[in-house]
């Protein structure tokens, strides 16, 4: 049974009298406890797909299902991790992590125990009572991830969660996420424009075309990962493996071909169906 299911999803944005087709007829299934990354050039609609799974945006046609239900609104069964962290600046680390549980009505004692567990899991000890602006970017994103995990959601939706971090922190966070995914497997939809990150983290990598975003190809990484036990090895070693570089280069090439196709294509990408106004 698939946990997230995009069924011929299209999304049209309206800007003034223009209609822009952002996502075109995407069908994608993410299995239970599977980690799927979507990569693609910027503006290809990958974030739009994630927002539709989150219930923060809705398809113009087609449907998005999580579990067996069509997505109608945001909810704590689908935790979102945003690129901009989206921590509440007026709440401490502890209050941020506990917010979702509080919304669920979990009593304080129980909530504190859960918060403590995730503070420890994400290595945030000593920062419990800090405010987000007192933490580094990496630490802030740890808090955001802890806040999502604390709800023990079926589905985690991560929108370029490491995009705002420096290279070093980013690598640490990637390792962290692999570790977390092993201890605590979830269904994950992960948006990124970093190909290496996608190949390192995901069971499958979905490559999207430039706008209007379609699925170009889905690359199965899981068999290689399992065969070579990537999870057991440090990240730099994995990224040096022939199998890893092969997959990475293949996806890079796909994306470059996309970019070149864009350079050759005429500049008018938006749909112009509605152009003739009154």
């Amino acid at each position: 049974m698939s946990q997230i299911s995009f069924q011929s999803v299209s999304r049209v944005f309206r800007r003034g009298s223009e209609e822009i087709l952002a996502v075109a007829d995407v069908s994608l299934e993410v299995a239970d406890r599977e980690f799927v990354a979507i990569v693609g050039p910027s503006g290809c609609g990958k974030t739009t797909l994630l927002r539709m799974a989150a219930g923060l945006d809705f398809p113009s046609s087609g449907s998005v299902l999580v579990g067996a239900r069509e997505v109608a609104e945001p909810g704590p069964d689908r935790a979102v991790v945003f690129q901009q962290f989206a921590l509440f600046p007026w709440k401490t680390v502890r209050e941020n992590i506990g917010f979702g549980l509080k919304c669920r009505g979990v009593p304080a004692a129980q909530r504190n125990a859960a918060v403590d567990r995730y503070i420890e899991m994400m290595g945030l000890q000593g920062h419990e009572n800090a405010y987000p602006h007192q933490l580094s970017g990496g630490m802030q994103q740890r808090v955001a991830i802890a806040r999502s995990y604390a709800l023990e959601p079926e589905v985690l939706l991560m929108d370029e969660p490491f995009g705002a971090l420096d290279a070093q922190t980013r690598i640490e966070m990637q390792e962290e996420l692999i570790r977390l995914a092993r201890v605590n497997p979830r269904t994950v939809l992960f948006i990124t424009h970093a190909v290496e990150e996608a190949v390192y983290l995901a069971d499958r990598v979905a490559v999207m075309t430039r706008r209007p975003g379609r699925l170009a190809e889905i690359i199965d990484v899981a068999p290689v990962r399992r065969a070579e036990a990537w999870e057991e090895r440090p990240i730099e070693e994995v990224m040096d493996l022939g199998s890893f570089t092969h997959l990475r280069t293949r996806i890079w090439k796909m994306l470059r071909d996309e970019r070149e196709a864009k350079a050759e294509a005429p500049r008018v990408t938006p749909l112009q169906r509605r152009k003739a106004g009154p």
Partner: protein
Amino acid sequence: MGGAVAADVTAAQGARPARGRRRGAPGVVELGLLSLGGFAAFFGLWFVVARSGVVPARFLPAPGVVAATFFHLTHDPFAGYTLQQHLLSSIGRFLMGFALAAAAGVPLGLLMGWFRWLDDVVSPVFEGFRFIAPIAWVPFAALWFGTGIGGPILIIFSGAFPPCVINAQRGARLIEPHLIEAARSLGAGHCRMFAEVLVPGALPSIVAGLRISAGLAWQSLVGAELIVVSSGVGYLMVQGQSNLATPIVMSGMIAIGIVGFLIDVALRAAEARIRRGWAGA
């Protein structure tokens, strides 16, 4: 008057460097000296003009006379009360009008910021009303409330209400959309969203609005007290005027200035504190 109603929103969002730039960043001591210099020049000029006899003392009393009258008023009742008692009753009215404006205006503004339709309903009427100077309500205040407490409060309220609404509305509207989306994804219901996201998120803007609102409320006071019978600084001044006692009128003006200044200092301090706490917003 209407132009000063909306707080500088970027400042309210916690952009601290703006202050230094605006002042050309002199030190604290230099600032103190400059302020003292300003006072000295003002009183010096006043003293010279009053002493020279160009303007009759009836029209412009000398600073010394005003100071003596001011001191006199603090222990010798005029128009029934001492200056402090007049001030206290003024401050009481001010607090009631201001509290009422804040209690009604801030929630209304927040709701307008949250529900677009409410904004569409309220804004057109509100935009018209907020340009009516508080003193323009005097006839109706008198007609509706007579000499009761309601009249002055209505006038103060009409001055203090708009900045409360506008700044709360802006504060709510300018909250990071990601924070609202995060809260919804984490399962926040309407009440929690309001109490734990909207209010704290809009707080810097709300407090900036309250500061402006308090200033306008205090300014509206004299107008309000023109129709009050028996106490208040405005009343003291009206009585002074009808006795042709200009030093008394000026003492009232000075008292209004001092108290207004103190209110502003207190609210500025509160605003700065909140902004510091929100530095990461």
